[in-house]
C-alpha cells in the first residue's frame, strides 16, 4: 500500500500550514509531559464515567475509549468545503427518503433498482405515505469522512439511523481545554459547545401540530446496558430533557405520555436512540422489551415526532451508498461535492467476479453491518479467512459490497515509541431542523491506534482525538 497522506506533514513531508503552531509546540514539549497529560486525561475519563460497552465482552463491560491528546486540525478553508458538501449530502438523503416513502420518482427514473428498496429489510412499509413534519427524516446525521489526499473529502459511510459519538466531540474538547490551555491560546479553535442547544432547537422545531406551544422533548434510550448509554445520559443532561426508557412511556388514544411523579405527561418529540426494530413490539419485534406498545400508531396519527424518523436505514444502507452520487444529482441537479469510495456491488455479476478475483486487495463489508463487525480487510487477512469469505460471498452475494483498500490519511499520535502517524477518519454531525441545517464546527476523529491498522471503530481497538476547526 502506498504511503498515506499525513494531515500534518502532507505527502512529501512538508508541514501543512494548519499544523504549524502545533508542530512548534510539540518540539518545545518534552515527551514525558505528553505522557503525563495522557494519563491525566484517562483518569478524567474514568472518573466522569465516559465509558462504552463492547457487546459479548463481559470481562470489560465498561471500557474507556482510548483518547489521544494530539489534536487533529482542519483549516477554515477545508471546513468551508466540507460543510457545504455535508449539507448537500444530508439534504439529498432527506429528499430521497421522502421520495422512497411517497412518490418514488427515483425508482421510476430507473436510477435505483426496485428490489434494492423493497427487498431490503431496513425498508419500512409502515412509512409508506406517512408524512413527517417538514419532510425531515434525518434530523441528526453522522457522516463518516476520510481523506486520501489534501484536496478531497470522501464519504465512507452515511449514518442516518441513530449515529453516536457526539458526546466524545464535546467531552474530548472539555478535557483538552483543561489539559492544554496554552495550546488553545496559541490557536483559534472554533468552539463546539453550542451543539446541545442546536440539537434541542432542531428537535423542538419538528414538534407535531398537536403539541403545546412549548413542546416536550425526551431522549429514549435502550437502557444502561446499551453501549452508548453514557452518551444518552450525557445528551439528555445537556439538553435538559428527560432520559426515558420504553417502560417510562405509555400510549393512550394515540398520544405518548411519560410516567412521572405527578402523573402522566404528554411527550411531543422523541429523540430516540433505539433502533426501529425495538421501538414498538406491536409493529416490529414482538419480543422487544425496550419499546412502547402503540408508539407507531401514535406516530402514524401524527401526535409524536420521532427523530430520526422510522425507516431511515434505507438511506444509509451500504448497498444504497453506492448510488449516493446519483441520488445527489437526481434531486438537486448538482454535482456531489463529497466523493464516494469506489464501490463494487456484489449483487451485480460483473462486480462479483471482479471482487472474487481480487479479494486480497479489497475491503468487503456486509451491506447491513456496522461497527466494523463482519468485515474482511483483504490485505490484512489470512488465506483461510479470505477463502471463508469467498464462500460467504458466493452464497449470498447481495449481502456484500467491496471497496478498494484506501490509504486513509494519518495524523501524528502518541504511541509507546513516541509520536507516530496513525490512520484517522472523521464523523461530523449534521443537524436538520425546520428552518435550517447546522453543523457545529468539529466532529469525532477516530484513530486506529495499532500501527498500520485501518479499523478505527472503538469496538475494534480504535481511539479518539479532539478535532479542531481553525477560524480564519
Amino acid at each position, binding site marked *: 500500500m502506498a504511503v498515506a497522506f499525513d494531515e500534518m506533514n502532507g505527502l512529501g513531508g512538508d508541514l501543512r500550514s494548519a499544523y504549524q503552531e502545533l508542530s512548534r509546540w510539540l518540539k518545545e514539549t518534552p515527551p514525558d509531559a505528553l505522557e503525563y497529560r495522557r494519563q491525566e486525561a484517562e483518569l478524567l475519563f*474514568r472518573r466522569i464515567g465516559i465509558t462504552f460497552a463492547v457487546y459479548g465482552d463481559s470481562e470489560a463491560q465498561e471500557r474507556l475509549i482510548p483518547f489521544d491528546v494530539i489534536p487533529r486540525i482542519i483549516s477554515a478553508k477545508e471546513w468551508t468545503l466540507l460543510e457545504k458538501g455535508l449539507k448537500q449530502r444530508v439534504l439529498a438523503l432527506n429528499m430521497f427518503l421522502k421520495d422512497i416513502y411517497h412518490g418514488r420518482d427515483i425508482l421510476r427514473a430507473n436510477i435505483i433498482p426496485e428490489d434494492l428498496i423493497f427487498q431490503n429489510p431496513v425498508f419500512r412499509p409502515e412509512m409508506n405515505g406517512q408524512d413527517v413534519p417538514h419532510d425531515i427524516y434525518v434530523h441528526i446525521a453522522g457522516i463518516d469522512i476520510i481523506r486520501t489526499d489534501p484536496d478531497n473529502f470522501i464519504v465512507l459511510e452515511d449514518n442516518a439511523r441513530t449515529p453516536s459519538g457526539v458526546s466524545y466531540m464535546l467531552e474530548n474538547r472539555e478535557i483538552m481545554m483543561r489539559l492544554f490551555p496554552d495550546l488553545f491560546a496559541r490557536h483559534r479553535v472554533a468552539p463546539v459547545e453550542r451543539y446541545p442547544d442546536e440539537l434541542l432547537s432542531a428537535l423542538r422545531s419538528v414538534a407535531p401540530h398537536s403539541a403545546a406551544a412549548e413542546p416536550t422533548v425526551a431522549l429514549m434510550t435502550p437502557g444502561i446496558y446499551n453501549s452508548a448509554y453514557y452518551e444518552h445520559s450525557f445528551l439528555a443532561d445537556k439538553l435538559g430533557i428527560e432520559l426515558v426508557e420504553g417502560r417510562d412511556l405509555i400510549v393512550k388514544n394515540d398520544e405518548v405520555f*411519560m410516567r412521572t411523579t*405527578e402523573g402522566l405527561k404528554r411527550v411531543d418529540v422523541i429523540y430516540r436512540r433505539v433502533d426501529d426494530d425495538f421501538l414498538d413490539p406491536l409493529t416490529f419485534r414482538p419480543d422487544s422489551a425496550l419499546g412502547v406498545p402503540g408508539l407507531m400508531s401514535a406516530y402514524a396519527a401524527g401526535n409524536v415526532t420521532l427523530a430520526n424518523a422510522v425507516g431511515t436505514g434505507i438511506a444509509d444502507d451500504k448497498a444504497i451508498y453506492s448510488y449516493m452520487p446519483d441520488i445527489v444529482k437526481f434531486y438537486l441537479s448538482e454535482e456531489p461535492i463529497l466523493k464516494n469510495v469506489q464501490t463494487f456491488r456484489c449483487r451485480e455479476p460483473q462486480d462479483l467476479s471482479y471482487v472474487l478475483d481480487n479479494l486480497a486487495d479489497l475491503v468487503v463489508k456486509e451491506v447491513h453491518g456496522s461497527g466494523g463487525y463482519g468485515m474482511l480487510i483483504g490485505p490484512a487477512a489470512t488465506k483461510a479467512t479470505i477463502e471463508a469469505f469467498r464462500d460467504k460471498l458466493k452464497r449470498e452475494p447481495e449481502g456484500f459490497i467491496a471497496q478498494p483498500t484506501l490509504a486513509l490519511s494519518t495524523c501524528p499520535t502518541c504511541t509507546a515509541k513516541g509520536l507516530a502517524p496513525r490512520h484517522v477518519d472523521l464523523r461530523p454531525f449534521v443537524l436538520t431542523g425546520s428552518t435550517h441545517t447546522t453543523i457545529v464546527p468539529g466532529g469525532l476523529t477516530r484513530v486506529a491506534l495499532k500501527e498500520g491498522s485501518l479499523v478505527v471503530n472503538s469496538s475494534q481497538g480504535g481511539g479518539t482525538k479532539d478535532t479542531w476547526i481553525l477560524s480564519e
Partner: protein
Amino acid sequence: MLSRTAENLFWLARYVERAEYLARTIDATLRVTALPAAYIGKTNEWDSALLTAGVGAAFYEHYEEANERNVVEYLSFSDANSSSIKNCIEAARLNSRSVRTALTSEMWDTINSSWIELQAVWTKGGTGNREELAKFLRFVQETSLRFDGSAYRTMLRNDAYWFSRLGVHLERADNTARILDVKYHVLLPEEEHVGGPLDYYQWTSILRSVSALTAYHWVYRETLKPWLIADLLILNDTLPRSLASCYSNLVRNLDQIGVAYGRQGAAQRHARGIRNRLEHSHMDDIFQHGVHEFIQEFLADNSRLGEIVTKQYLV
C-alpha cells in the same frame, strides 16, 4: 420528574445510607468484641450484628458459625447477601448510572470514584487484616458523608432532592429502629435498672453504631443511663439519627413534594401520623407499653410508609 428517576434516587440514597450503617455496625461490634469476655457477657455480639442488619436467618444458609470472620465477610463482601456493603455500593453505582441526569456531577463523582476504588477490595475478595478492614470501613463511611454532603451542597431543591432525602431518612429510621429492636433488653427504665459493667459496653456500642456517643454527653451531661439512651434514639429531635428527627424530615420532605405538586396524599398523612405519635410520646409510656412492642410497631409503620410512597409516586 419520571417516576423511575424518582425511584432510583430514592433507592440510591437508601443504599448509600445502608452501606454506612453496616460499616458502623461492624465497627462497633469489633470494638465491643475486642473487650475481655468479663466485660461483655455471654451474648454473641456477631449474632446481634447480623440481627441489626436484618440478615440473621439468611446468614445461616451460608455459614455455620457467627464469628468475626464470617460475619464481616457476609456483611461486607458477600455476593450472596443482597444487602452487603459491596452489593449496596454496586447497586448505588448502578442506580446512579441510570439517573445520571438527575445527579449533580459531584454526587456522581463521589459514587463513581468510590466504586472504582473499591474494585481493588472486591478483586482481593475482601480485606486481609484488621487494619485493612478498619480502613475499608472508614472509607465506606466517608463515601456516605461525601455523597450526602455533595447532595446537600449541590442539588437543586426540587423533587429530585426531596425523593433522595426520603430515601435517606426512611432507611436511617429503619436502621436506628433495628438496633433498638435487637438491644431493647439492655434498655430498661430507671426503676428496673440493675445493669452492671456488662451493659455499659452494650450501651456505648449502641451509641457508636449511630455515631451518637459524644452527642449523648452533650445532650444529657450525664453518665450513660439506658433510659436516656432510649430517649435519645427514639424521641430526641436534635439527634439526626433518632426516629423523631427522621420523621420530622420525612414529613417536611413529603410536604415539600405535596406543595410542589399541589396535592397531598396517603404518604403525607401516614408520615404525619407517625411523627405525631413520636412527638406526643414519653419514654415512661413507651417503657410501660414495652420498648420491644413499640419498636416492632414502628418498624412496620416505617416500611408501610415506604410502600405508600412507592405507590403514590414511584410506579
